C-alpha cells in the first residue's frame, strides 16, 4: 500500500481509531493490531511477500534468544553467523543474484568466451527487503554485542520488524530504540500527535506535489538526453537531486509522522542535506539511519579510523561502495558510492570531515555568509554530478550524459519552469532548518485553515492524479 494512495487514506484513520479507542486499554492487543495492520499494509503489494518477512522474523527471533542464552562464545558466533547468512542470503538471492550472473556472463564475454545466460531467474524483488533485513540484522548484532536483551514476546518482535510506517523505506530503526517503545504502554500525547499530523502533511506535500511533478520532466530529460543541450541536462540532474530528496525525505517524514500518531518516536532520517558545507556534513544529513548503520555495523568493526590512514581509506571506500551496492544491483550505484568515497577522502585527509557536526549553516544568522554559500554550492554540485550515475541505467549512459552536461553547455531555460517548485522548497527548508519540530508545534486558526487547504490539495492530487508515482526507495 502506498502512503500516497486512496487505500491508505482509509487505512490510516481506521487503524488510528481502533488503536486508540478499541484496543487502548491493552498493550498486547495494540501491538497485535500494529502487527496485523503492518501485514495488511505490506501484503497489499503482493501477499507472497508476507511469507518471507515472517520467516525472516522467526529466524531472528529464535537466533536472538539463543544468542542471549548461550554462554559459549563459539556458539554465539555461529548463531550470529546463521542470522547474517540468512538475512544476507535472502537479500543476495532476491536482489543481487541476477546481477552477479549477468556480470559473470559479461566478464566472460569481454575475454572472448560467449556463454548463454541460462542461470538468471525471474525473481520479484520484495518491496523494502533491504530495509527490514538490515533492521533484523542490527537486532541480532546488538544482542551479540550485549547491547540489547531479546524480547520473548513474538508479537512485539514481529511488530518491530514489520512496523508499517517505516517498513518499506525506513528510517532503518535500531532495535535498541524501537523495541523498548513497543514493549512499553503508550499514552496519547497531543503535541506529539500534532507534530505527527503536520509531518505527514509536509511529507506528502514533498512527495505528491514536488517529487511527482519533477518525475516526468526528469524521466523525459534522462530518456532523451542525447537530443538535449547541456543546460537542460544540468537542469535534469538538479531536478533529480530534488526529486529524490523530496521523494525519500517525504517518505521518512510521513513515516515519522504516522509513528508519532501512534505514540512512537522514530529517528530523524534527513536534516536538510542540501545545506551541507562539505561531503562529510552531507552524509550526516542524508539517509542518516543508513549511514549510521554502516558506521556502527561495518565501519567500526573494520577498524574505523583507528589503524592508520591507509586502513581508514580502505574502510571509507568499503562503506561507500557497500552503501552504493545496497541501493541496487547495478554498477551505476557502485560508481555512485565510489564517487562519494573519493569526495570524502580529501576531507578526511585534511581533517575537515568532522567539521560542522553539531551546527547548522548560518546558525546565528538568517542568511549564510559568502563562504558558507560557496561551500554549499560546491557540495551541491558534486552531489548532483554523482546523482547522474545513480539515476542512469548504465555507466555509459551516465558518462554520455555528463559529457554533454560539460561540453554542450549553454544557459538553456528550456524546461526551467520546474524551478518554481524547487526554489520555494529551498526557502521553506531554509526557514525550518534550525528547529523543524518547534515550528510544527505552533498552532492557531490560520494554521488550521492552511492545513485544511493543504489537505484538500493533497487529497485532490492523490485521488484524481493521472498516475500515482511509487516512492523511488521502494526498489531498494
Amino acid at each position, binding site marked *: 500500500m502506498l502512503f500516497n494512495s486512496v487505500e491508505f487514506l482509509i487505512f490510516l484513520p481506521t487503524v488510528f481509531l481502533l488503536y486508540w479507542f478499541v484496543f487502548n486499554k491493552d498493550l498486547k492487543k495494540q501491538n497485535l493490531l500494529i502487527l496485523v495492520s503492518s501485514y495488511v499494509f505490506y501484503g497489499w503489494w503482493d501477499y507472497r511477500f508476507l511469507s518471507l518477512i515472517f520467516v525472516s522474523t522467526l529466524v531472528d527471533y529464535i537466533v536472538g534468544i539463543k544468542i542471549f542464552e548461550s554462554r559459549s562464545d563459539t556458539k554465539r558466533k555461529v548463531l550470529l553467523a546463521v542470522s547474517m547468512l540468512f538475512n544476507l542470503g535472502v537479500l543476495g538471492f532476491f536482489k543481487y543474484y541476477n546481477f552477479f550472473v549477468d556480470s559473470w556472463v559479461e566478464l566472460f564475454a569481454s575475454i572472448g568466451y560467449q556463454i548463454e545466460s541460462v542461470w538468471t531467474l525471474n525473481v520479484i524483488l520484495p518491496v523494502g527487503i533491504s530495509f527490514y533485513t538490515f533492521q533484523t540484522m542490527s537486532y541480532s548484532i546488538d544482542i551479540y554485542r550485549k547491547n540489547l536483551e531479546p524480547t520473548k514476546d513474538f508479537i512485539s518482535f514481529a511488530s518491530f520488524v514489520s512496523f508499517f510506517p517505516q517498513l518499506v523505506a525506513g528510517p532503518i530503526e535500531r532495535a535498541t530504540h524501537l523495541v523498548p517503545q513497543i514493549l512499553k504502554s503508550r499514552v*496519547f500525547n497531543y503535541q506529539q500527535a500534532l507534530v505527527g499530523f503536520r509531518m505527514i502533511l509536509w511529507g506528502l506535500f514533498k512527495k505528491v506535489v514536488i517529487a511527482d511533478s519533477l518525475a516526468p520532466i526528469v524521466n523525459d530529460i534522462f530518456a532523451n538526453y542525447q537530443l*538535449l543541450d547541456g543546460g537542460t541536462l544540468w537542469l535534469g540532474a538538479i531536478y533529480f537531486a530534488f526529486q529524490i530528496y523530496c521523494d525519500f525525505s517525504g517518505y521518512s517524514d510521513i513515516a515519522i509522522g504516522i509513528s508519532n500518531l501512534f505514540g512512537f518516536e522514530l529517528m530523524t532520517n534527513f536534516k536538510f542535506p542540501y545545506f551541507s558545507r562539505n561531503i562529510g556534513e552531507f552524509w550526516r544529513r542524508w539517509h542518516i539511519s543508513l549511514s549510521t548503520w554502516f558506521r556502527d555495523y561495518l565501519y567500526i568493526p573494520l577498524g574505523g579510523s583507528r589503524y592508520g590512514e591507509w586502513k581508514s581509506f580502505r574502510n571509507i571506500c568499503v562503506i561507500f561502495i557497500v552503501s552504493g551496492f545496497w541501493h541496487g544491483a547495478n554498477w551505476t550505484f557502485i560508481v555512485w558510492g565510489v564517487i562519494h568515497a573519493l569526495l570524502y577522502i580529501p576531507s578526511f585527509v585534511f581533517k575537515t570531515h568532522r567539521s560542522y557536526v553539531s551546527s547548522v549553516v548560518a546558525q546565528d544568522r538568517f542568511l549564510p555568509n559568502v563562504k558558507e554559500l560557496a561551500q554549499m554550492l560546491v557540495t551541491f554540485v558534486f552531489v548532483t554530478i554523482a546523482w547522474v550515475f545513480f539515476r542512469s541505467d548504465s555507466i555509459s549512459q551516465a558518462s554520455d550524459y555528463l559529457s554533454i552536461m560539460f561540453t554542450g553547455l549553454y544557459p538553456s531555460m528550456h524546461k526551467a519552469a520546474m524551478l518554481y517548485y524547487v526554489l520555494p522548497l529551498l526557502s521553506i527548508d531554509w526557514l525550518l532548518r534550525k528547529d523543524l519540530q518547534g515550528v510544527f508545534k505552533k*498552532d492557531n486558526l490560520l494554521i*488550521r485553515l492552511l492545513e*485544511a487547504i493543504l489537505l484538500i490539495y493533497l487529497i485532490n492530487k492523490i485521488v484524481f492524479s493521472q498516475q500515482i508515482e511509487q516512492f523511488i526507495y521502494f526498489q531498494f
Partner: protein
Amino acid sequence: MKKFLNRSLFILLFVGLYYLLSFAFNYYYDPYGLLGRRTDYFGLDPNLHSLKIDRLVSQPKSDYKLLFSDSRGGNIDMSDHGWYNVSYPRGFVDEFLHDIEYMLDKGVTMSEVAIFVDEHTLFEDVEWHNGQALLRFVELDDVPWIYYVAPLDFELMKFEFYYNYQIDTMHDKFLRFDVKNNGVYYEHNFEYCDSPFVFVDVSARDIKLDEKDVELFENKYKVLDSIRTLCAENGINCKFFKHPISTNRLKEEEMDKYFLFLEYLKDKKFEMIPIFSSDVMKYDECLWRDNGHYNRTVSDKVATRILEEFN
C-alpha cells in the same frame, strides 16, 4: 485526545464543506465539466466522447463528414472543409463502431467518415476503459453522479462565470482540441514548428503470438469490417487511416503486435491508408508533444492527406 479530535474535526469539516461546495457547483452549474475548473480526473475531464456525440445527435445535419480517432487525432483541423473532429481520449475501434451505429439510429446522416487506427485503438483495455466515468460513453440526458464528484481545483479556480451556458456554445470554446496544453510538458511545442520530417522504415518483428493475441486480432478485424459494412449499407464513404507513430513509441512491447496486426489486415485485403511514406517518424521534440501525440505541424499534413483521399 479530545483536543486532537476537536482539532481534526474542524479541519475535516472545512474539507467536507469544500467537497460539498464543489459538488453543488458541478451539479447546478457545470455538470459536464466544460468550464475546466475541476480537478483533472485522469487528464480526461470533461467526457469528450459523450459530449461530442451528444452535440452531433442534438443537431442532426445531413452529410456530416466525421473523423474518428483517439487523442492523437485531436489536433487534426478540417473544419474549413466541413469536417467535424470526433476524436476523444483513449477512443478505440469498438467505440467508433458504436458511435456510428448510435448516430445512425438517432437520425444523423453522414457522407464521409475517416477512421484512424493506431496501436492504442487496438489494445485499449476495454474493461478498464468502461470503468472510467470520464471515458465510457453516457447519454447526457442522464448525467451519472460521478460527473459531479471531481472537486474544483485550486489551480484552475478563476472566477469567470459563463451565465446561461449551453453545451453548444461552450463546445467551440473548449472542445476543439482534446489534448490539453495544461502543463509545462506540452507547452513548448503546442503549435507549429519547422523541424524536417524524418521517416524510419520499420517492419514487424516475427514475435510469437499467443491465443489471446490471435483472438484479439480476429475481434478487432471483425469490428473494422463491421464499420466498413455499416458504412457501405448506409452510403457512407468510409476510409481507414493509420496514425503516424514516433520512434519513441517503438520501445513499447505492444508495437510489435500492432505491426503484426497491420500485416494481418493486409492478408485480409483490408485497406489501411498510410499518411506518409512510412508509418514511423523519428521522434523530434519540436514535432511531438510527447511520445504519442504529434503537434499541429504534423496534424496539418495529416489533414491535407485525408482531404486528398476523399477528393
